[in-house]
């Protein structure tokens, strides 16, 4: 992998929209080209080089390209959005829509992300090492499909409506999750290792989707019914995946844990599962 280094210099208070910080966009260009890629600040057009020092190497193919953003960029929107391959590594925080609609490749954010991180993602891996805010892996307004594939790992806490309208893919949150996690969910898996706030799985239809609460849950909706407590074999597969593929060692603790199985949301005739690990 060839590394392109972008070091933020003076970021304005108005957010910079920089969907060009994406392996697909920079690959095959020269450093000079990259430096003069257009970014948007409010109603004005600027170039990337005004806000970032551009160094490093460029690959021919996106899949060979790594972009390192060496600093914190809370006000830079759309980093890694729509990427299909390659890798983006933000050594700080990232602004709204980080990794949104990405379909491949890997993105790592060392700090936190703002709203809509990984929204409508269809593939690839997005790892946030701190908190992510609302609508992580969610659907944009009006869309009946949120995440349709890929994996998001949030090592901190996550905001409301995590994985809304989720259809496929996987989200893992090491910390706590705010209300309405997995709302309108219709497939896919969500793992919450911290505390899950109430109203998770609201109006979820199911279609194989489930929410696993490993760290406890505030309250289960009254339109979910408790079925049984058992040790699901399939959960072992996931726990091993979390441990072995994603390096989340804590998952190993749940290999033999019994889970309380809830099914709902009966308000929509759904068969989504909420699986709560017994303490």
């Amino acid at each position, binding site marked *: 992998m060839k590394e392109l280094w972008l070091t933020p210099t003076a970021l304005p208070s108005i957010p910079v929209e920089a969907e060009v910080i994406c392996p697909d966009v920079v690959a095959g260009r020269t450093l000079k080209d990259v430096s003069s890629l257009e970014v948007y600040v409010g109603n004005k057009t600027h170039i990337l080089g005004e806000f970032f020092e551009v160094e490093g190497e460029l690959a021919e193919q996106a899949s060979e390209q790594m972009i390192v953003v060496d600093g914190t960029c809370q006000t830079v929107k759309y980093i890694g959005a729509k990427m299909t391959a390659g890798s983006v590594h933000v050594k700080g925080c990232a602004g709204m829509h980080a990794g949104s609609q990405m379909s491949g490749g890997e993105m790592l954010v060392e700090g936190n992300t703002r709203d809509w991180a990984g929204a409508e993602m269809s*593939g*690839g891996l997005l790892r946030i090492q701190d908190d992510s805010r609302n609508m992580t892996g969610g659907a944009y307004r009006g869309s009946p499909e949120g995440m349709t*594939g890929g994996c998001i790992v949030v090592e901190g806490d996550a905001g409301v409506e995590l994985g809304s309208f989720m259809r*496929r*893919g996987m989200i893992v949150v090491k910390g706590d999750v705010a209300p309405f996690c997995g709302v309108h969910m219709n497939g896919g*898996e969500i793992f919450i290792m911290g505390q899950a706030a109430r109203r998770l799985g609201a109006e979820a239809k199911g279609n194989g989707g489930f929410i696993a609460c490993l760290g406890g849950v505030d309250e289960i909706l009254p339109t979910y019914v408790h079925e049984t407590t058992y040790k699901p*074999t*399939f959960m072992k*597969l996931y726990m091993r995946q979390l441990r072995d593929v994603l390096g989340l060692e804590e998952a190993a603790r749940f290999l033999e844990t019994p889970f309380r199985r809830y099914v709902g949301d009966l308000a929509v005739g759904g068969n989504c599962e909420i699986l709560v690990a017994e303490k």
Partner: protein
Amino acid sequence: MMSFEYNGVEIEDTFAEGFAMWGTRIIITAKNRKWANIAAAEMTGFATSVIACDCEAAVEREIPPEETPDGRPGVAVMMFGFSKKRLSAPMLNRIGQCVLTCPTTAIFNGIPEEEADDMLDVGASLRFFGDGYQVKMRMGDGWQESQRYWRIPVMEGEFLAEAKFGAKKAVAGGNFLIMGVDEDSTLEASERSIEAIHTVPGVITPFPGGLCRSGSKVGSKYAFLKASTNTPFCPTIKTSFPESQVPEGANCVIEVVLNGLDEPSVMKAMAVGIRAATEVPGVKRITAVNFGGKLGKFNLGLKEALEDA
């Protein structure tokens, strides 16, 4: 017939006639080894030969927990059938009757898609046992290799079954005959042979304990019978049967039959099996059964097998 000596035993320079079948590998896991083995034994029962069984199946090997997808003790079972359809039908029946029913078990595909010639969607039918309450489980969509399972509610809990199983164009009918001075030495040699064969991945020996004492030949003097005892190799009629092939001094013949996922595995298994047999005193001669190359497309030569190994 030409022959050569190997480890002090006469080996006929002939070949076993293998034929093409479709083979698959199913990994059964369970809460502990006991139940994994029980399920495997049930599933591979009455599956020695397609002459009268729906398929040929046997345990390939036991799998330690570290190597199974769910971290529980496992058994690899292999099954062979003449076509994809004639493989998936008995798979479905046997999984349904023998594994689904067996407490704590789960099944996983044992041939990954990239190694398989085709994928058999057993889950497509198996799931209906869930009567509408089955759950489709997806893993890895968009970021890892996509995997599909069915979770079927059962009284004991949940039966987890991978949806698709890899199948390969495989080789069946690998064999060799061990001819010994007496029953003890021949059986001893055969058992050692089977033990050795089981060290080769991708190969099973579907007959009882891996051994076929009867042998068989195509046809019979009775028109209604498809196959009958392998008269040329029956020591008790050594003299009365005109073209007997039982050598002087041999009083017992046992056939080792094996199926494998590909020709090299079968050849290797034959080689290690023969070598193990030759180490037992009392083995007079080893040969293989063929039909002059008319039946199968694989000529599994004993000499070639031993030379390659």
